[in-house]
C-alpha cells in the first residue's frame, strides 16, 4: 500500500484563555506519518507534546487545518465514526497505565477489544496472546496491585497491541518507571511496532528519543524535525 497513514495539514490547536481570548497551543503544523514509521516527539513540559499526540490519536480535534487518516478526513467525521476508528485501528499507551484496579491483567487487556465486533471468546484468546507477547503469559489472573510498575505498563502495552493496530501512540510510557525498566518498555514497543504498526512515542528523555529514526521537536507549539541521518551528517 502506498501513501501516508496519518497527515496533518496546517493544523492548529487553540484554547480559550481566562480573558476569553484564544491562545494557540499548537501553531500551524503540517506533517505526515507513514505506515510502519517510528517517531519520537520530544520537547519540554508544556510545549504541546501531549496536545499534538491527542490530535494525531483523534482524541481531540484541531481548531483549524485537516487531519487525515488513511486518506479519510477525520476532522469531518462524527464522534461515533472517530470512536470506531480508535476502537479498530489505534492503540494507546499512557504514562499512568490506566488499568482498572478491580480486574485481572487478562480482563484489562480484553477491555482493549470491548468496542470491536470480535466475539468474547476470540477477545479472550487474543488478549492471552498479547499478554504472552509482552512476557506476562504466567500472570494473566493477577490484578494490577499484584504487578510491578513495569509489569503494569506491559499490560497496558498488551491492551494496545491486542487489536493489531495500524498505529500505537505512547504518551510518556517510561515516565513512571526507572531507567532500566523504561528501556525494556521501549524495546517492547519497538518490537511490537516491528510487526508493521507505526509507533509514535512522546518522551522528554533524550536517551529514549535517540532510539527513534525520526524525531519531532516541539517548543512553544512549533514543530521541527530531525532524523538519524540529519544528526550523522
Amino acid at each position: 500500500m502506498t501513501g501516508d497513514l496519518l497527515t496533518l495539514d496546517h493544523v492548529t490547536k487553540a484554547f480559550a484563555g481566562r480573558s476569553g481570548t484564544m491562545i494557540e497551543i499548537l501553531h500551524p503544523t503540517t506533517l505526515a506519518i507513514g505506515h510502519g514509521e517510528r517517531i519520537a516527539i520530544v520537547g519540554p513540559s508544556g510545549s504541546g507534546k501531549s496536545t499534538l499526540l491527542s490530535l494525531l490519536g483523534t482524541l481531540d480535534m484541531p481548531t483549524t487545518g485537516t487531519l487525515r487518516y488513511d486518506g479519510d478526513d477525520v476532522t469531518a467525521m462524527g464522534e461515533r465514526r472517530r470512536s470506531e476508528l480508535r476502537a479498530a485501528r489505534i492503540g494507546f499507551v499512557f504514562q499512568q497505565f490506566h488499568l482498572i484496579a478491580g480486574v485481572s491483567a487478562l480482563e484489562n487487556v480484553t477491555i482493549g477489544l470491548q468496542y470491536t465486533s470480535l466475539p468474547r471468546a476470540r477477545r479472550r484468546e487474543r488478549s492471552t496472546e498479547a499478554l504472552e507477547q509482552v512476557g506476562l503469559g504466567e500472570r494473566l489472573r493477577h490484578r494490577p496491585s499484584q504487578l510491578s510498575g513495569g509489569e503494569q505498563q506491559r499490560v497496558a502495552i498488551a491492551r494496545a497491541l491486542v487489536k493489531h493496530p495500524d498505529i500505537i501512540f505512547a504518551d510518556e510510557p517510561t515516565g513512571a518507571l526507572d531507567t532500566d525498566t523504561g528501556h525494556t518498555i521501549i524495546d517492547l514497543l519497538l518490537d511490537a511496532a516491528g510487526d508493521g504498526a507505526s509507533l509514535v512515542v512522546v518522551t522528554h528523555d533524550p536517551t529514549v528519543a535517540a532510539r527513534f529514526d525520526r524525531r519531532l521537536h516541539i517548543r512553544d507549539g512549533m514543530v521541527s524535525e530531525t532524523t538519524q541521518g540529519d544528526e550523522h551528517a
Partner: protein
Amino acid sequence: MRNPTSTRRSPRIRKPLRTRIADLLHTAWIGTTGRVSRTILASLGIALGVAAYVALSGIAASNQTALLARLDALGANLQIVAPGQDAARQTIPLPEYAPDTIARQPIVEQVGVFDTPPQNIRIFKNELVPASNGNALALAIMRPGALDALGTTFARGHGIDRNNEHLPVTVLGSEAAYRLGVNDVGDRILIDNEWYGVIGILDPMPQAETLNTSAIIGEAWTLDHYPDQAADIAQISAIYVRTTPGDAETIRRTLAHAANLTDGNVSVTASADLSKARNATSDSLTTLGLMIGMIALAVGGMSIANMMIVTVMERRGEIGLRRALGATPGTIRMQFVTEAAMLSAFGGLAGIGLGAGTAAGVALAAGQPLALDWGSLPLAWGAAVTVGILAGLYPAGRAARLTPTEALRSE
C-alpha cells in the same frame, strides 16, 4: 516534513457492534463490585424503600385479610333476597327455583332459605305467661343448612339437622332466649300452644337482626304439623346469600335476575355500610403502603444519584481510557446508567427479602395470616430498577459529555 512510502496494508475498519448487553452488564458488574462498601451503602437506600413498601403493604394485607374476615363474618358479603312488590303493592312470591338458580351464580358461595311462618303464632316461656305478653318474638322456618349460610355460631347447643328435623325442636336467637329466660338447651318453650325443646341458642347475629328475636324451627316438622297451611308455608320468605366480594350493584342485579327470571320485582338488600367499609379498608391500607414506599424509593434514588456523581468524578481516568479505546459517548452513558440500574436491582432484591421478612414477622406476632401480594413484588423490583435508571441518567450524562482528553488529563 517527509512522506515515507510504506508497504504495510491497513486492515479495514471493522464496524463495532452497537452495544452488547453482555458487555454492558459485565462492565457494570466490574464497576459496582469494585467498591463493595459503597455499593452496599448506595443500594441501602433503594433496599429500604422497597422494604418499606413490601413490609407495609404486607402488613396492610395481613391486617386487611384479618379485618375483612371479621367484616365478612359480620355480613359485609351477605345479601338478603326477599319477595318484592308490584305497582299495586301486591307481594310477588319468589319462585321455588330461586334458591337453585341463585346458588348456580359464580359469585354465590352459600345460600340459606327461610319459609313463610304460619299466621298468628305466639311464643311464650310457658302457659303461665299472659297471652297479651307476646315478647315481640317471631317464628322463623328454616330449610336445611340455612344457618350455615348466615355464618351463625352457637352460644349453646346445636342446630336443626336430619336427626331432629321431624321433631318439635327449636333454636333461639340470642335476644329471643334472653326474653324467654332460657339460659341453656334442654328447656322447653311454647310455640302456638305446643311444647318445643330448645336444642340451640345462637350468638348475636348483626348480619341478620330479625333472627336475633326469633325462634327457629325446621321446615320438615312445620309442614308435617301444619298440613292445611303447607302451601303458604312453602313460600320463601327470605334467601340469605353469601357472595364473593364485588361491586354491590352488579351483585344486586345478578341475584335479582337469578331469583326471578320472569319478574323483576325482587327485593335484594345488603349490609351496605359494611360493604362500603370493606372496600374503603381495602383501598386505604393499600394506598398508604404505596405512598410510603414511593417516598422511600425516591429517597433511595437520590442516594444512588449522589453516589453515581461521585463515582463519575472518581473514574474520569477510566472514562478517558474507554473513550480512547473506542467507546462512544452513548456507550459511556449506557455504562453508567446500567451501573445505577444494577445498584438498584441489588437494592430491590434485598428490599424484597427484608420487607417480606418484616411482614411475616409482624403477621406472626399479631397472630394474623401472612398475606403478601406476591404479584406486586416483581412490580416493586421493577419500580426500584426504574428509579435507579432515572437516578443514573444525570451522572451518566455528565460522564458522556467528558471529552477523552479532559478525562485523561484528570489523573
